[in-house]
């Protein structure tokens, strides 16, 4: 119904590509000019060659699938739980006051410290990865939702109250749209944190996936292969962000941040 305003302009895409090329070029030049040793930071060309080998390996694609499964499941759980908890806590002052200290206490606990516990509870499979991913990504969404909920315009809120909108209608039509820009940022943050944790969990626990491949490359002193895999992680992040931006343009077309750019 609502076409996204001037979707991605070709100019923007070109600029983005230019930025990436700049990065690749830097990585090519740094080791070649001797600023760092090519043994530790191989030039882009060698990384790309290693990448090509990876891409030809069936096992790589299976690992990628495993990682993405853990990522997607974990992220989905974290986002749903974060939004539900955030809306609940954010809109009920009592809950907010009562949970604040606990939340602040739990948030800084590193997922990596929980690895032994996770393995003890869920073994070395997907369960552990999920636990770590969800634990880390959940807070990102929650905090954003909490900040988003308090952003409701007082006049909007009074309007909703005066027309006696029910709880659900208020959440659906007032709280949610107001918090949405914050939530979008939260989801984008959580998406990469989830990817990071999925990979880290595999790296440490050894459950199959990109992470365990990175671990193998590390212990094997296979530097180009390691960077090739890191590059994959980076590219995944890029794709995820592209998707998030597309969703944002559709979901937030009414918001100043998106519509402001159409006019300027």
């Amino acid at each position, binding site marked *: 119904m609502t076409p996204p305003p001037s979707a991605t302009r070709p100019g923007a895409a070109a600029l983005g590509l230019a930025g990436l090329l700049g990065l690749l070029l830097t990585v090519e030049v740094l080791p070649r000019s001797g600023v760092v040793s090519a043994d530790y930071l191989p030039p882009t060309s060698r990384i790309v060659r290693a990448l090509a080998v990876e891409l030809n390996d069936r096992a790589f694609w*299976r690992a990628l699938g495993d990682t993405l499964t853990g990522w997607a499941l974990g992220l989905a759980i974290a986002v749903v739980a974060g939004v539900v908890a955030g809306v609940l806590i954010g809109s009920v002052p009592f809950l907010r006051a009562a949970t604040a200290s606990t939340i602040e206490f739990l948030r800084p606990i590193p997922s990596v410290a929980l690895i032994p516990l996770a393995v003890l509870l869920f073994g070395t*499979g997907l369960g552990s990865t999920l636990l770590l991913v969800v634990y880390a990504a959940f807070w990102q969404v929650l905090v954003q939702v909490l900040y988003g909920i308090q952003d409701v315009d007082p006049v909007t809120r009074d309007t909703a109250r005066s027309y006696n909108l029910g709880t659900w209608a208020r959440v659906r039509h007032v709280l949610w749209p107001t918090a949405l820009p914050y939530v979008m940022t939260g989801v984008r943050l959580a998406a990469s944190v989830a990817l990071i944790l999925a990979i880290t969990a595999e790296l440490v*626990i*050894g459950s199959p996936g990109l992470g365990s491949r990175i671990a*193998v*490359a590390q212990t094997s*002193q*296979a530097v180009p292969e390691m960077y090739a895999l890191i590059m994959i992680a980076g590219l995944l992040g890029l794709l995820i962000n592209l998707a998030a931006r597309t969703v944002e343009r559709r979901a937030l077309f009414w918001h100043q941040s998106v519509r402001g750019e159409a006019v300027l």
Partner: protein
Amino acid sequence: SDSESTGGGDPAAGGSGKTTAVKVGVIPIVDVAPIYLGKEKGFYEKHGIGLTLTPAQGGAAIVPGVVSGDFQFGFSNVTSLLVAQSKKVPLKAVANGVASTGEEGADFGGITVKKDSPLRSAADLEGKKVAVNTLKNIGDTSVKASVEKAGGDPSRVEFVELPFDQMPAALDAGQVDAAWVVEPGLATIKAQGGRVIASNYVDVAPDLTVAMYFTSTAYAKQSPEVVKAFQDATRESLAYADSHPDEVRRVITTYTKIPEATLKNVTLPKWPAEPNRSSIDTLAELGRQDGLFTEVPDLDELLP
């Protein structure tokens, strides 16, 4: 790289005749080549064990994996096992893992320095910064033994924790003065012109037992037959690996990504079939001196 039958089958069902699924947590390094080789050769199958090898980064995942029963067996260095034992972690070592070659200057691990480093012997490490992969573990304990043996004061060595794979770069950049490194990092450093100034494993004891396979005490009690079968198969694998270095080098390429050029120069460790009890006693004593244990580990409990 391994996708056959997954573990978690009923371990108690390990009667002879049918195969028991067994999951082993290993670290994807040269040291565990025998078990990969043995699996490939069918040694484990022969003993009724359907083996799944899961590579993990280290003890943080393998030990809880074994304790929780997710893994039936795990691979760990001896010092870690001793520490665990002293902390009453219910573990039981079941089979030998890997041992030092016992040859000074030709071990699979050693204390390395940069090409142009003035350091000549372990005694020179006094007041220097030495990288080890884990502090308060086999690395610093054995390096200290080397320093002591060379006539230096081990308490004046400064240790820094650094993963093996980052040691070549750190050494090269002068961020550390020396690095205790094992293969394939050792080969990498040597290729850059680095020198080995001491073989710390050799300095601890001749034919030092470095690592072992272990299980949980619960599993050992519950399925002694499986443990027995695993021990037998591992013994066979170790012996085979020890006498077939070429096959070892080949099998390593199946589970690591060690570049061919490096692998060629990798010094293979020894894989004796049995652990060397007296060397473990020495390690335990060194650990006690370094304050690794609050309570002295009970070696009779721990070892098979």
